[in-house]
């Protein structure tokens, strides 16, 4: 059944999102920078290279265990810059407020933005405020854009992953998505799972400075680890093999996913980075990550192979093998 209207799943970060971009948006705006479709665009200006990105935040509820929409709006955009190896410098802040929002609430969100930005060392350079009628928005939405500086000779790209590369992740998966879901009206359940929402630049910097040969990095947000690795497999034309027993998933996340019938591999993270490095450098990267507070539970989770091109396979706990697919864009609540 072809979709002639936007449905919620178009925002899920899976195949429907990709189709929408590829069929409706990209062809009309096509240019070489946009075509790269990395987490950030890479711009060459006056001999320097800069990363430029934007992201909108519509998370519901706007406060969740482990953070709020303000913290998320800084971390999400800064992380997209970091994935290109860019040091975050400047942010823009667009606020869409719903009539009736208590000013004290807005103040607290802006304070959260201030504190997170200070931690990362990024500054808000410009902004915009709009108000929509009561009932036309959900308290507040935020858009941020970010600019970061890419150090010389540090080009990371989804397309530069090679057979023999190691795949690593800095800690437990699916915690942001589960934490937000646990707060949703109609789903609410008790869980100790807290969002992993965090700014990754300092961890990424540590990884890059370890001297390891890093080929690509991805923050597995919407669509989870599955979407991130599937993207890389397609962009680089390689196969990726993950080990189920190596995937770091907490008991709380596992339990919640079983209850809700969800696959933790498809669930969003907001403080995770998947690193693709030369296979022989895996231990060096792992050591670097584990020495950083955001990487204590880092794991080697898989390897890159020549075949099957564009496909991700998982060696299961019982020794079988299955495909890890790009999520369709499940009918899940908005989580970022």
């Amino acid at each position, binding site marked *: *059944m*072809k*979709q002639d*209207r*936007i*449905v*919620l*799943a178009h925002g899920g970060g899976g*195949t*429907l999102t990709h*189709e929408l971009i590829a069929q409706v948006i990209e062809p009309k705006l096509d240019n070489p920078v946009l075509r790269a479709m990395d987490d950030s665009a890479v711009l060459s200006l006056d001999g320097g290279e800069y990363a430029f990105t934007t992201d909108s935040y519509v998370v519901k509820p706007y406060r969740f265990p482990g953070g709020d929409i303000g913290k998320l709006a800084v971390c999400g955009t800064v992380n997209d810059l970091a994935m290109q190896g860019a040091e975050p410098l400047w942010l823009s802040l667009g606020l869409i407020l719903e009539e009736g929002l208590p000013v004290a609430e807005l103040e607290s969100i802006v304070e959260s933005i201030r504190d997170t930005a200070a931690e990362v060392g990024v500054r808000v350079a410009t902004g915009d405020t709009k108000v929509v009628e009561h009932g036309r928005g959900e308290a507040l939405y935020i858009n941020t854009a970010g600019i970061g500086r890419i150090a010389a000779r540090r080009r990371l790209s989804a397309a530069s992953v090679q057979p023999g590369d190691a795949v690593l992740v800095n800690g437990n998966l699916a915690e942001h998505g589960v934490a937000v879901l646990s707060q949703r009206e*109609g*789903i609410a359940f008790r869980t100790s799972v807290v969002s992993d929402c965090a700014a990754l630049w300092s961890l990424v910097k540590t990884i890059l400075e370890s001297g390891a040969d890093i080929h690509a990095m991805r923050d597995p947000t919407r669509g989870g680890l599955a979407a991130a690795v599937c993207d890389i497999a397609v962009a680089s034309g390689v196969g990726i093999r993950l080990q189920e027993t190596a995937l770091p998933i907490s008991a709380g996340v596992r339990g919640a996913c079983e209850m*809700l*019938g969800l696959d933790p591999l498809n669930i969003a993270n907001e403080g995770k980075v998947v690193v693709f490095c030369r296979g022989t450098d895996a231990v060096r990267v792992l050591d670097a990550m584990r020495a950083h507070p955001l990487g204590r539970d880092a794991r080697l989770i898989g390897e890159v192979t020549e075949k*099957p091109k564009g*496909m991700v*396979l998982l060696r*299961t*706990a*019982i*020794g*079988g*093998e*299955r*495909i890890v*697919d790009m999520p*369709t*864009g*499940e*009918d*899940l609540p908005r989580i970022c």
Partner: protein
Amino acid sequence: MHDVMNRIAELARQVGRHVTFMEVCGTHTMAVSRSGLRAMLPANVKLISGPGCPVCVTDTNYIDAAIELARRPGVMVTTFGDLIRVPGSESSLERERASGADVRVVYSPSDALVLARENPDKRVVFLGVGFETTAPTVAWTIKRAAQDGVMNFSVLAAHKTMPFAMEALLKDQEVKIDGFICPGHVSVITGAKLYRFIPERYGIPCVVCGFEAVDVMKCIVMLLAQIVEKRATVEIEYTRSVNEDGNTAAQQLIAEVFEESDAGWRGIGVIPRSGLAIRPEFARWDAAKTLGVKFGEAKPHPGCRCGDVLRGVLTPPECQLFAKACTPTNPLGPCMVSSEGACAAFYRYERKAVAA
């Protein structure tokens, strides 16, 4: 794990012929596909999926009726998420929602009752589908609505029960089944005794099975052993949760609110006594009655062979539409929509076996 695999291989050798085991539970479908178990089995042991995915067996005309309700002004349709993308004859609840219909995803029927209390100006309809596992909570919610006099709440009921569907497949003869992997969740409620008539009347072994891939492996060992020993009986692998008699309180709750009825199964047709209809005492909360729902003639996609997949006659990749016209992004039939559907699970986790 290796021990169990070796045991399967040894017993399969002793059986010495092709055997086909059918699971009739969406969670088993998922466990088999997600673990890669199918490809690990000996060549003469085949696992197939039966009509165990509640969304998949729901008739197209039920979806059409739900869509018709969603289009009515003042009606809010509440449903489990899986149902929302299932194509009806011409639309889906997802499309209706995008066009302005009030369709809400809930995780339990009691959440739908809360929505009814919060929206007294709306007629809140819960789409009651599923097997004995979901029926008790729906029964509880209807009772609660009756006790509290929540008159704007109702249920469009299409609950089904498994045993007579399994019998229908055995009578059908088109697919040869050598053993049933019986559903764990359903059996927690109903007890294992429910399946006794299958070995007694048809000589087919049954094993009630838990949900991990390892459970399914042990269950296969037990089924093969019965065949080797020329026995046919109901055994329980899932002993940690299932006994002979089941949860009698839940059974009572079902019996209080529902009564046995004939039910239409997608692709199989009407199976006598395989459904649960809301009793006349609770007719005020039966959406079919209070809202005058008409079930029309269904028009499934012409090439769709979900019916044959549900009967185990066809494996997903044998369908002409599979992975070509019909994908999880663009599902033409219900088996591709629900994550527990045989086609969706096969597409998601096993299609490489076909491609390679």
